[in-house]
Structures are given as structure tokens and as C-alpha cells.
């Protein structure tokens, strides 16, 4: 089993797509933080205009954030399609190559039909294709093209979900849209890492990484859980459910009875149209706080273990240190989000750093779970 030969330009291009996706997540976070998700009431058009022809003079208020997000999303979609095509073309030949490329071109071309039934059909098809791509990759981990297929399907699904969130007015779609964005970023990063000779060499370094597999996985799953909680809180559009930190309404654990929640709402003076908070919002918020402490503990623990087990200079040890630093920044951003009454820029940075934390967790998991395989694939020994 051998990994395909590396291509410096492919790796660079993949990192470019990763960077563009990270910017897109930042812009998406800004849209939610500014409460501008529905500032453009139609989709795929923008106030009746074609997306690309909407006059700049109308990019005002919430429209600016939502429209920029849509345009950037179109760019990421295009970049991903090129990446998927590139990966497919370099790993296949003859009829397979043209069939695969033809199918990808058809999927992208169908998006241009701009009809709701076509969008819904594409989204319905995209989810199983994502699963199929990941399954094929798991069976044949040298085939990065399958990750490309999964990424293209995911970006189509993501785009249509974003559109349906606008036309169907369903908050639940927003939560899934947010989580899929984070997972998509992780998927692209895996492609970038595996396509890079330097990363492959680094991650395949000997060391007792096997013993770190489970702790890294647990910490990464905990981070994903935190992101899920965060996305749920954001898409309930209730604003800041607990306005003080480290205490909560002046107590270690806030009161949740009806009278207390009524008083919380009485005292909230929101500038934006936030829903009144409920006991569920308060519990979600407090669970997110507790989850933050658990994540700090878990990442601190894996960092300590990696220091004990891996030699200085081992890339996994280095990544663990960066990871812990990032989690520290994320914790601080969470606190500042509360202290600034959920200032849009701070809350958005909190989303973006959360995405980075998941990304590093994913890369470290890839390294610890697949180091043996990566070494073998590179022609090295099997003992790691």
C-alpha cells in the first residue's frame, strides 16, 4: 500500500483551500454574531439579483455580511471542485478518469440550473456520497481522490443547506450548517496533510504515539461536542443566556425556576431582536462552560502525556503544545464574549478558534492513529 507521490503544487493549493474555508467559517460566524443570517430573504438570488451581479451600493447593514458570506462560499465551492478534480485526475486514468471528472462537472453544472428541486435532489444525494467517499478512503487510504469526492459532495451539501436555511426558515438547519463547516475544514486539512511530503515525514516519526491515540481522540471528540453545544446556542438566537462570568447570575449555579428566568428576562436589555431566554438556554450555556473546563483538562492531560512519551522535537508533541495554547486562547475568548455582552467580533473569533482547535485535534488524531500506516506507506519500518 503506497501513498501517491506528492506534488508540491497540489499541497500548496490544498492549503489555499483550507485557508479560504477558514475565512469562510469566520465570515459565517460573523453573519450569526451580527444576526444577519436572514438579511437577504431570497436564495439563490439576492434581492432578485443574480448573486454575482448584486450592486455593491446595496451591500449595507446585515446584507453586507450575508452577501459576502455567500460570495466567498461560491469561491470555496469552486476551489473545492478544482481540488476534487485534480485529486481524481492524478490518481486515475483512461475511462475512470473521464467518468469521474464528468460526474463532478455534472454535479457542479446542475447547481447552475438554479431550481429548488434540483438543489434538494443534489443535497439528498450529497450526504450518501460523502459517506461513500469516506468509506472508500477507509478501505483504500492511499486514494486521496476519495477524500476529494467526499469534499466536493460536502461543499455542495453545505451550500444547499445554507440556501435552504434562508428559504425554509429553519434554525435547526443552521446548527447542522455550522457543524458541517467545521467538519469540512477538518476534511480538507487531512487532504493537505496527506498530500504533503514534509507532513508525512513528520507525522511518521518514531515514538510512542500509539499510547496517545485514545487520549487524543477523546479530547478531539470533546472539542467537537463543545462546538455542537456552541452552534446550538448560537442558532437558538437567544443572545447571552448568562451575563456574568465566572459566576452565573451571582451564583455558582444559577436558579432555573420560572420566577428566576422571568427576572433574568426582565433585566436583559437587548439591542437586537433576541428571543427571551428559557431555562434550557441557561442550562446549555452552563453546560458549555463546564465543557470548556473539561476540554482544558483533557487537552492539558494529553499535552502532559505527549511530553512524557515523545522526544523533544517530535511533531506530535509540538502540535499538542500548540493545541493547548489554542485551547487557552479559546477559553479566554469565551470569557471575554460574556464580559463584552457577546460583542460580534469576539464571538466570531471564538467560533474561528474553535474551528482551529478541532482542526489540530483532527491532525493529531490522524498522526497518532495512522502513524504506522504512514510509515509503511513511505517505505519505512512498521514499528512506531
Amino acid at each position, binding site marked *: 500500500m503506497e501513498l501517491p507521490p506528492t506534488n508540491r503544487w497540489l499541497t500548496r493549493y490544498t492549503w489555499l483551500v483550507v485557508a479560504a474555508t477558514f475565512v469562510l467559517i469566520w465570515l459565517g460566524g460573523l453573519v450569526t454574531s*451580527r*444576526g*444577519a*443570517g*436572514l*438579511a*437577504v*430573504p*431570497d436564495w439563490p438570488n439576492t*434581492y*432578485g439579483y443574480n448573486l454575482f451581479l448584486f450592486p455593491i451600493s*446595496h451591500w*449595507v*447593514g*446585515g*446584507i453586507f455580511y*450575508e452577501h459576502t458570506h455567500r460570495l466567498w462560499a461560491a469561491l470555496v465551492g469552486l476551489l473545492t471542485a478544482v481540488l476534487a478534480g485534480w485529486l481524481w485526475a492524478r490518481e486515475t486514468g483512461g475511462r475512470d478518469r473521464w467518468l469521474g471528472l464528468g460526474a463532478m462537472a455534472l454535479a457542479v453544472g446542475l447547481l447552475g440550473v438554479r431550481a429548488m428541486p434540483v438543489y434538494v435532489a443534489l443535497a439528498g444525494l450529497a450526504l450518501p456520497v460523502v459517506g461513500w467517499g469516506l468509506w472508500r478512503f477507509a478501505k483504500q487510504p492511499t486514494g486521496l481522490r476519495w477524500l476529494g469526492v467526499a469534499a466536493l459532495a460536502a461543499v455542495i451539501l453545505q451550500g444547499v443547506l445554507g440556501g435552504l436555511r*434562508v428559504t425554509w*426558515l429553519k434554525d435547526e438547519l443552521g446548527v447542522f450548517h455550522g457543524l458541517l463547516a467545521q467538519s469540512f475544514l477538518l476534511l480538507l486539512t487531512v487532504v493537505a496533510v496527506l498530500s504533503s511530503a514534509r507532513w508525512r515525514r513528520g507525522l511518521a516519526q518514531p515514538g510512542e504515539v500509539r499510547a496517545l491515540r485514545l487520549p487524543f481522540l477523546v479530547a478531539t471528540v470533546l472539542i467537537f461536542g463543545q462546538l455542537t453545544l456552541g452552534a446550538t446556542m448560537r442558532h437558538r438566537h437567544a443572545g447571552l443566556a448568562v451575563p456574568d462570568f465566572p459566576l452565573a447570575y451571582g451564583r455558582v449555579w444559577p436558579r432555573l425556576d420560572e420566577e428566576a428566568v*422571568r*427576572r433574568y*428576562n*426582565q*433585566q*436583559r*436589555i*437587548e*439591542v*437586537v*431582536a433576541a428571543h427571551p431566554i428559557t431555562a434550557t438556554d441557561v442550562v446549555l450555556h452552563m453546560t458549555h462552560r463546564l465543557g470548556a473546563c473539561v476540554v482544558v483538562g483533557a487537552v492539558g492531560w494529553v499535552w502532559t502525556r505527549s511530553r512524557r512519551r515523545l522526544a523533544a522535537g517530535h511533531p506530535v508533541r509540538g502540535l499538542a503544545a500548540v493545541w493547548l495554547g489554542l485551547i487557552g486562547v479559546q477559553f479566554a475568548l469565551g470569557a471575554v464574549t460574556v464580559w463584552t455582552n457577546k460583542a460580534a467580533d469576539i464571538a466570531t473569533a471564538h467560533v474561528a478558534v474553535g474551528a482551529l482547535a478541532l482542526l489540530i485535534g483532527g491532525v493529531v488524531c490522524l498522526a497518532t492513529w495512522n502513524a504506522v500506516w504512514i510509515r509503511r506507506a513511505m517505505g519505512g519500518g512498521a514499528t512506531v
Partner: protein
Amino acid sequence: MKRYGTWIGWCAVLATLPTLAAAEISGKITLKGTPPPERKVVFDALCGKLHTKDAFTRHYVVGPDSGLANVFVYLKEGPPGKTYPVPEKMPVLDQVNCFYEPYVMGVLVDQKFQIKNSDPLMHNVHATPKVEGNKEFNIGQPVQGMVTEKSFPKPEVLVRFKCDVHPWMFAYVGVMPHHYFAVTDKEGKFKFPADLPAGKYTVVAYHLKAGELTQEITVAEGDKKELAFTLEAK
């Protein structure tokens, strides 16, 4: 000719009799306690041009003698068997200087009301009802003077309207199955239509922040009741 005049006169008297016999309910809502201070609205560049003075949120609008504005007051259940003609004048939810006007208003079930954009800029109008049967909608009103007519088929207190282009813009519309509702003015005063038949009723005063109070009342024909509610800011 004189005969016709007499007939018309009698008809007019008979037509006004039910009204004369009907009860009239009015009252005042006051706020006890000190509400939290309102927050300054930070406009974007375009909306900022429409304002020469600072503008603030409108959660608690309290008059000098503690009268609380924007309280939606209504009968929990209207008199049985009574029908309500749709008023000729259509209520208007206007967008003026990047605010909704009025902040709270009421309409009858299925009564059409207008949503108007009086601003020289783009707004979107996003209604977020919660009661099943009342449909959420989000429409664009990009042009000044644009008017859209809407109605809701189910009673709901209160349906929130918001503009996502300008997130500080939001307002509320109460949808009632009868016309015994009112929104308190700047002095906290309200008055129901003066054609309420005698009977037992529950009057509800609902404020988005200060909460809800109810009063059971019994009115006889021709009664004029003056109610007083005191909501509390804790």
C-alpha cells in the same frame, strides 16, 4: 318626506341602543420599581444619517407618573357569539428612520394589515410567529414607499417582527379573535371599544419585559369600568 325622516330617526335610535347598553372598559398600567437602563442603538452609516440625536432601545417606555407604554391589554376571551366586522382602515406597521412604528400593535385574526417601508433604504421584514397556523415569512422591501399586505389566521400574543439588515429593528403584533384589545399609550392608558356586552371577563395586561397580570371583572349593561394594573420591574 317627513314620514321617511321619522323612520330614519327611529332606525338611528334603535341602532345606537346596543352601544348605549354596552359596557366600556378603560384603564391604566403603571410600573413599580426601576427598570434597567435602555441601551443606545449603534446605527450603520445609512441609518445614522436619518438621526440627529442618539436613539435608544424601547423595552421600558415609562411616563412621568409611572404609566407604562406598549402594554398589550386584551380580553382573554371575547363575548360568545359576537362577530367583528373588519375595520375599513388597515393598520400599518411602518418602518421609519430605521425603527418600526408602532413598537406594539394589534390586529384581528385574518385582518389584513400593511407593512410599509418609509425609509430611503432597504429593509427586510421577518415575522417569527410561534403559533401553529401562523406562517413565518421573510420578505425584502428594498424600495422606499413599498407596501406589503399580510394577515395571520390564528390568535397569537405577540408575533415578533424584525429586520435582519438592521438587527436593532424589531416590533410586535398581537393577533386577536375579537376586537377588545388595546396598546397602552405614553401615559400607560388604554381603552377597549365601547360595545362590550354585559358579562364576566378576564382582562390581561401583557408587557414583553415586565410580564403579565390578569383581572377578573364583571360588567353590567352601561357600566364604565376603570381598571388599574401595576406591573413590577424586579
